[in-house]
């Protein structure tokens, strides 16, 4: 028999709860464990030394505690050797023991122990030339958290004597006057002046600037690291400090509001507008120097040191043929401090459940009323006379297994006289009390819980610096029976082989596993159905494929039941995706002669993805498939059944894709300063290969538990031929299963196209700086790729750029202008490229077709050869300024760009006698222009490290996108409305039909080119009547972020504005009647009726327009284009950094807590149809993040 009765409930709520709690529990345990380790390992000191130098002892203590020691060697050597023996004592006690009886004392600043002479010792102990009054000073610059302020400039006021603090914050200055004043400046710190306190080494405490975007002094382009001062390009670098203020699982989202010109709208990220018609619009992602093929979503957000966005051609020219869409350069963190640092962080995001009431659909009760009115008319014509045609149609539909709604069935029975009106009314009343969507929300949706844990261990000591990062993400998907987990393991090391060679190497493995249901999770079930009855038992209903009133599956022993319940079905038919991305890299740095380094790099990436779609034997999909191919022979008790699809077991469809990628680069760098001249030159070659391929397979009769399958027993050829007219089929009479066969069986077996691409390039660039005032930059490169074929003239087309920069503040005439701290003008011009993999210059034919009459293989040439194919080119002119004014209170940059893209791949029409009617060639031109402004102001600067500070960052960008030329291919209004191109308009423009509302009989009408109205499709000659309704991309986006810091608290929030974009939403469709499925859209309530003839919404059901409305014309009408402008509070969060006095007691260096709200209700939305422009429907789900981070 094999008849599948729906299973009894299996859900065990306790188990579910336990599952939910497990990750939380794990975090807590981990947290406690770390505290224990920290308490034991980092605070207690054990020493047993006899006649050892203090230096040696300090080193020991440093190893045990992680505290750095700051001292003058001479001073320490003066005091001679000591003997000390302590066991498990505190740091302070241990040092006391060591310095006992010595002329030394100490203080602890942050994580540094400063050793200084006792007061009676002369303040300055080392005079280079006695009697000159000159001294040498060494010391350490630390920030308010006691962390070293790397790169801070320490200079002697009024002189050119200056130095920079190293990675540990140490600095040394020689030959100071005794009463000299030190000035400490830096891009990321507040400038300050200090008098030497007489101690050497001295500790200078500085305050970190609460600046966004500008806190980085160097720019990493992936190929080189260059001082910002010397750069001429438009770049934005965001450092980890900034990024860590906000938690976003995807690092790209964290850039919102920080980078002018980067727009992340509706899932697409663009930098300075779309610069192509048909090719990829993805920005190039570079991680630690080399482009990666994996997704940027896989970059561990906790492990990012800096992200640099290269916006203009000079900055991006280094990536040549792939840089037209901008370049995102990610640098991961590395071990910095000379000790082991352990960082732990976790963020847990809790999402609201989606609110179905915001979907702009009618309620369950309204749905019943609407259907009631419709079916009363449909069967009874509004009077008592029964419409026998309709009655017969429905009788037939029930018999052939078409979908039937419960209200429809009630009226069908009424029309047939089987029930009374009162019975129908009672039944409808009970329907009205049901609310399927609410039950679905309660029982099927879960509050989405996204958890991410990160553990980083970094050491730097001796010749090896290591960084080991473990990241784990888990997500319940917000629905039962689903999950998405990912483990990311990253090791990165630097080994100093010798003075002239460093080696960097690393391996990154990302293993992901996700599961989601293949069964509809936005159920197309009438809103007045039930998921559970009053007693909590499952209620069974049909899908739109069948109806519950047809008894064939009950009366035919060979067939299986066709009813479902989502709670059950969501667990029976699911897809599991296993991903594994690994990346290995090795790069070497040879220091050949002073200033010259040679830098070979190699990277190998391997991505594997394995998708298994398993439909269990009892799943709806299998029951349906088996029923379709069950053939009955004979009648009555003698009937026998043959099963086209194995009667036992389910279906396993798998897809395996493999991607292997490698890149090799050899590069020479030369960086030297000769007096006032500074030059930086790089030159190199790069080779890359990408190779993807895969297979798709199918097992039928598969049983996961038994590990059995029966695929070989299936006669695929026979199944493929079963059509609608097959008289042997008893299920769904008249239904043609051929498409089902193709989708479920035929297409599940096959190949994922094997594709290999290769790129080779040679490049060079140079920066020259004169007197720290004038910068000149030039780059040149040649790129080759396999997609470009025949004519050597077009292969290796050179791409180049030039740039100029002027650091005005370094001019002598600026010296009196004290309110200007930094002022720089820069200009660049350059050319970058883009590739379209679909196009090829070779003449090839597509193979794999079969001539269905001769059954012989056919090859067909899809497009003519084009030996003049070349890169898409984008030439960008950028003019910008960076400034810092009023004692660095006001910082910012302004940029203007003009980005002209030419040779874009676009279809051009050909004379058909050439064999083809169109061809993709380089013939489109596009122009993007825009302004970008980034302005940051510090309202309050803290006097001390813990004082109040408040800073505001305003980022604004405009973009105007216009097609300058394209051989316009849209000759019909329909093609234009579907996304056609038109000169003078944006690439992603919306062209709409000029809707003129409804005529007196409720028929929608449009304006034709000659000014008359029509109710039929606009002809090609009416294309001029089409209306431009705006572009789909934002033209302006602005964001305002604020940060308030007081003591350990900081409050951040970001308000964003996107404006000037449009979208089609809530456009009515012609709804013929109330069919089986989800609730009707709420606009039907405003539809045309004979008594309500105003408005733009055509009637539905019995009032549908009398003649057929041309397809898509209503949906693409101008009146249903909505403005997409909105203002939202993107996030607000409160971070709390525990005071160090407290954290130190538990052995933690830094501890922070975070509470963050993402996407609360929008502040303002321009459209009046209650849709969120970012989703075209219900608002983005608000979520709350709770985070902890610890540093040991």
């Amino acid at each position, binding site marked *: 028999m094999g008849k599948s009765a729906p299973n009894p409930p299996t859900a065990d709520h306790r188990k579910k709860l336990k599952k939910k709690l497990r990750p939380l529990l794990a975090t807590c345990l981990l947290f406690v464990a770390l505290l224990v380790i920290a308490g034991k390992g980092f605070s207690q000191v054990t020493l047993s030394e006899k006649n050892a130098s203090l230096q040696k002892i300090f080193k020991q203590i440093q190893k045990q505690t992680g505290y750095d020691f700051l001292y003058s060697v001479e001073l320490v050597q003066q005091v001679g050797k000591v003997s000390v023996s302590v066991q498990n004592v505190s740091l302070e006690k241990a040092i006391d023991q060591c310095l006992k009886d010595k002329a030394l004392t100490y203080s602890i600043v942050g994580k540094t122990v400063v050793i200084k002479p006792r007061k009676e010792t002369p303040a300055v102990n080392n005079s280079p030339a006695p009697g000159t009054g000159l001294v040498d000073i060494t010391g350490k610059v630390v920030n308010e958290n006691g962390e070293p302020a790397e790169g801070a400039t320490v200079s002697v006021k009024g002189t050119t004597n200056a130095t920079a603090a190293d990675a540990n914050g140490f600095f040394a200055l020689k030959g100071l006057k005794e009463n000299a004043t030190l000035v400490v400046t830096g891009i990321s710190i507040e400038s300050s002046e200090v008098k030497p306190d007489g101690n050497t080494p001295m500790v200078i405490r500085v305050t970190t600037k609460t600046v966004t975007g500008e806190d980085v002094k160097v720019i990493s382009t992936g190929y080189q690291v260059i001082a910002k001062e010397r750069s001429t390009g438009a770049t934005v670098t965001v450092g980890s400090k900034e990024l860590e203020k906000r938690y976003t699982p995807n690092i790209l989202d964290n850039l919102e509001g920080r980078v002018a010109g980067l727009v992340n709208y509706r899932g697409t990220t663009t930098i300075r507008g779309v610069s192509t018609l048909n090719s990829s619009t993805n920005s190039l992602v570079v991680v630690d120097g080399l482009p990666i093929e994996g997704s940027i979503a896989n970059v561990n957000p906790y492990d990012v040191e800096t992200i640099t966005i290269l916006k203009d051609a000079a900055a991006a020219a280094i990536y040549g043929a792939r840089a037209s869409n901008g370049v995102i350069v990610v640098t991961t963190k590395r071990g910095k401090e000379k000790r082991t640092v352990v960082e732990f962080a976790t963020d847990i995001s809790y999402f609201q459940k989606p609110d179905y009431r915001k979907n702009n659909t009618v309620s369950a009760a309204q749905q019943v009323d609407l259907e009631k009115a419709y079916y009363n008319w449909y069967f009874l014509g509004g009077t008592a006379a029964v419409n026998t045609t309709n009655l017969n149609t429905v009788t037939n539909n029930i018999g052939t297994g078409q979908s039937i709604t419960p209200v429809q069935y009630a009226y069908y029975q009424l029309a047939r006289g089987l029930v009374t009106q009162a019975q129908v009314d009672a039944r409808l009343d009970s329907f009205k009390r049901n609310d399927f969507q609410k039950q679905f929300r309660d029982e099927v949706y879960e509050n989405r819980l996204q958890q991410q844990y990160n553990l980083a261990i970094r050491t730097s000591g001796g010749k090896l610096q290591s960084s080991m990062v473990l990241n784990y993400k888990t997500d319940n998907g917000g629905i039962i029976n689903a999950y998405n987990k990912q483990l990311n393991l990253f090791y990165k090391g630097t080994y100093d082989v010798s003075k002239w060679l460093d080696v960097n190497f690393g391996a990154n493995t990302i293993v992901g596993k996700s599961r989601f249901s293949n069964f509809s999770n936005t159920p197309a079930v009438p809103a007045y159905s039930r998921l559970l009855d009053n007693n909590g038992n499952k209620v069974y209903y049909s899908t739109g494929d069948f109806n519950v009133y047809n008894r064939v599956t009950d009366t035919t022993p060979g067939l299986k039941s066709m009813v479902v319940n989502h709670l059950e079905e969501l667990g029976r038919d699911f897809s599991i995706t296993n991903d594994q991305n690994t990346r290995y890299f090795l790069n070497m740095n040879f220091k050949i002669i002073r200033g010259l380094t040679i830098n070979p790099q190699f990277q190998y990436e391997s991505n594997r993805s394995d998708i298994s779609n398993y439909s269990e034997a009892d799943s709806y999909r299998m029951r349906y498939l088996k029923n379709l191919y069950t053939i009955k022979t004979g009648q009555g008790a003698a009937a026998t059944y043959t099963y086209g699809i194995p009667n036992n077991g389910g279906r396993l469809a798998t897809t395996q894709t493999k991607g292997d990628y490698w890149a090799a680069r050899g590069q020479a760098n030369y960086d030297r300063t000769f007096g006032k001249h500074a030059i930086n030159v790089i030159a190199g070659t790069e080779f890359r290969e990408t190779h993807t391929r895969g297979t798709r397979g199918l097992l039928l009769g598969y049983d996961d538990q038994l590990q059995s399958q029966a695929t070989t027993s299936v006669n695929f050829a026979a199944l493929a031929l079963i059509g609608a007219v097959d008289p042997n089929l008893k299920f769904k009479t008249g239904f043609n299963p051929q498409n089902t066969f193709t989708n479920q069986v035929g297409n599940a077996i096959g190949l994922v196209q094997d594709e290999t691409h*290769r790129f080779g390039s040679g490049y060079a660039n140079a920066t020259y700086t004169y007197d720290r005032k004038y910068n000149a930059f030039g780059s040149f490169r040649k790129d*080759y790729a396999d997609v470009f074929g025949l004519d050597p003239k077009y*292969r290796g087309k050179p791409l180049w750029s030039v740039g100029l920069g002027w650091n005005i503040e370094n001019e002598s005439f600026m010296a009196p202008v004290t309110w200007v701290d930094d002022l720089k003008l820069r200009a660049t011009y350059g050319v970058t490229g883009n590739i379209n993999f679909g196009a090829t210059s070779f003449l090839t034919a597509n193979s794999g077709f079969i001539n269905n*009459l001769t059954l012989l293989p056919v090859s*067909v040439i899809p497009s003519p050869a084009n030996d003049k194919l070349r890169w898409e080119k984008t030439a960008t002119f950028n003019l910008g300024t960076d400034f810092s004014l009023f004692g660095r209170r006001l910082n910012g940059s302004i940029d203007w760009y003009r980005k002209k893209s030419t040779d874009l791949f676009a279809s051009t029409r050909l*004379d058909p006698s050439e064999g083809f009617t169109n061809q993709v060639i380089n013939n489109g031109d596009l122009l993007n222009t825009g302004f970008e402004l980034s302005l940051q102001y510090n309202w309050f600067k803290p006097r001390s490290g813990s004082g109040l500070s408040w800073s505001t960052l305003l980022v604004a960008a405009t973009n105007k996108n216009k097609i300058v030329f394209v051989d316009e291919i849209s000759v019909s209004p329909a093609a234009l409305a579907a996304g056609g191109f038109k000169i003078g308009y944006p690439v992603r423009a919306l062209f709409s039909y000029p809707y003129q509302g409804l005529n007196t009989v409720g028929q929608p009408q449009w304006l034709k080119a000659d000014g008359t109205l029509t109710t039929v499709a606009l002809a090609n000659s009416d294309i001029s009547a089409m209306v431009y309704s705006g572009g789909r991309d934002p033209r302006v986006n602005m964001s305002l972020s604020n940060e308030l810091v007081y003591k350990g608290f900081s409050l951040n929030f970001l308000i964003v504005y996107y404006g000037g974009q449009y979208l089609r939403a809530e456009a009515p469709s012609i709804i013929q009647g109330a069919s089986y499925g989800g609730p009707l859209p709420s606009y039907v309530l405003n539809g045309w009726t004979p008594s309500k003839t105003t408005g733009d919404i055509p009637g539905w059901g019995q009032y549908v327009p009398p003649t057929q409305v041309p397809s898509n014309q209503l949906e693409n009408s101008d009146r249903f284009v909505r403005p997409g402008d909105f203002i939202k509070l993107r996030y607000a969060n409160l971070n709390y950094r525990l005071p160090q006095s407290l954290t130190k007691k538990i052995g933690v260096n830094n501890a922070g807590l975070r509470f963050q709200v993402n996407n609360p209700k929008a502040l303002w939305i321009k459209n009046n149809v209650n849709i969120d422009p970012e989703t075209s429907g219900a608002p983005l789900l608000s979520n709350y993040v709770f985070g902890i981070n610890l540093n040991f």
Partner: protein
Amino acid sequence: MKMKLLYALFVCVGMLSVPACKKFTDIQPKGKNLLNTVNDLDLLLNFNYHSTGNATESQLLYAGSTAFRFLENNILVNDLYPYPDNSLSLISSPAKGLTYALLTYDESIDRKSLAVSDIKYEKMYFIISAICNIVLDRADIASGDRQKASQIKAEALVLRAWFHYLLVNLYAKAYDPATVATDGGIPYVTDTDIEAPNAKSTVAEVYQKILADLDAAFQLNALPNVPVNNERAGKGFAYGVKAKVLLSMRDYAGALQAADAGLAINSSIDDHRNFLPPVGNRTISKKTIDAPDNLFYATITTTHPFDQIPSLELLNNVYEPGNIIRDSTATYNVSRGPAISGIAGTKTFFSATWSVNTAGITTMDLYLTRAECLARTTKVNEAMTVINFIRERRMKPYVALTATTEAQAMAYLARTSRIEYLFTPKNYLDIKRWNTEAAYKQTISKTINGITYQLKPDSKLWIFPFPQSATNYNPLLTQNY
């Protein structure tokens, strides 16, 4: 230090390898037919010339297209009424399109402005340029069996000749020795360069080039007598093309020779007496690609002309009394005709098991060419023998006809061929050809809803406009009417 220099040297060499980029990026894509071998090219010739196919194919193969339906030509010569349009609505509608012009012979309609694109034009030139010319361009350099290479070249030449022959007859004047040297023709495309516009040749030049291609094909001496299937060209097809071309050029002796050579290879003919009871039943059927009378099979669908509606004039006056299909089978459906066309008394051809070969060649082309050549060369009796041979297999009852003059024989031939060529473009080709001769020119007239429409032999409607998709992109292409 030594090591250091060694490494440096190693890296420098690496960097100087820019020229290697070019070689490095020379790779062959997988999943593509690179057209380097004879077998690769052979796969191009397996083209689906009938148009049913799956969705993916349809895009590439122009299948599912209406290219080989030739409904416009059928309407023009009053063989068929428009389908699926309602003729009465077409006439009464204020929107007057191309179909209206063809239905009512309204010469005032500006056809070239309405002809935005033309699927016939696109598909036939696709076959010429993207199949034939590619094969001819590469066969000599492709590796593989040389005999096979010669064969595919010969096939490509014959196909190129045939589709140019159809094109020139659709878009230019019929071959008229008096004016042929100056009559505008069509581009005869033999190159694979898509940049240079294809110049329009005169009708005379087109015919010369067609003959040259056919001669070249025969000279290769590589065509099989009978091809592996009927969507591949064999010698029978080549003779068929030659016969039709020479007939158009009024070279009756040459055409007769070619037709006879073709018939020597295949002389099968359908015998409709098989549909008569007790042998058959009232349902007729004809095989598709495997029909024995096919010399080359190219058509719209395997079920053409399902539901097409012959004009009342043709159905009632041209069909001879006793025609088996019309009078003795259930082929013509009474009820659907008026429902579709709006014209009372019309009937649709209602058989899903019938396949007319529209754009290919069958033995019927050879028989009818032979008959005309004989009639034109004073062999009237022999011509009538051929005509009666065909009629005998079409009639019940059958009465042999006799003729004494060329004109008489030609009239019988015209009536017979009109039914034999029904649903194909060949009636249009023949009538257009005969209209160049004073003796055989005819005015076509039809009556719809009491109004009579007439098509004069010199009407410009006989020449179809080049579509704008061609004229806008080929500066050398001008209309021929």
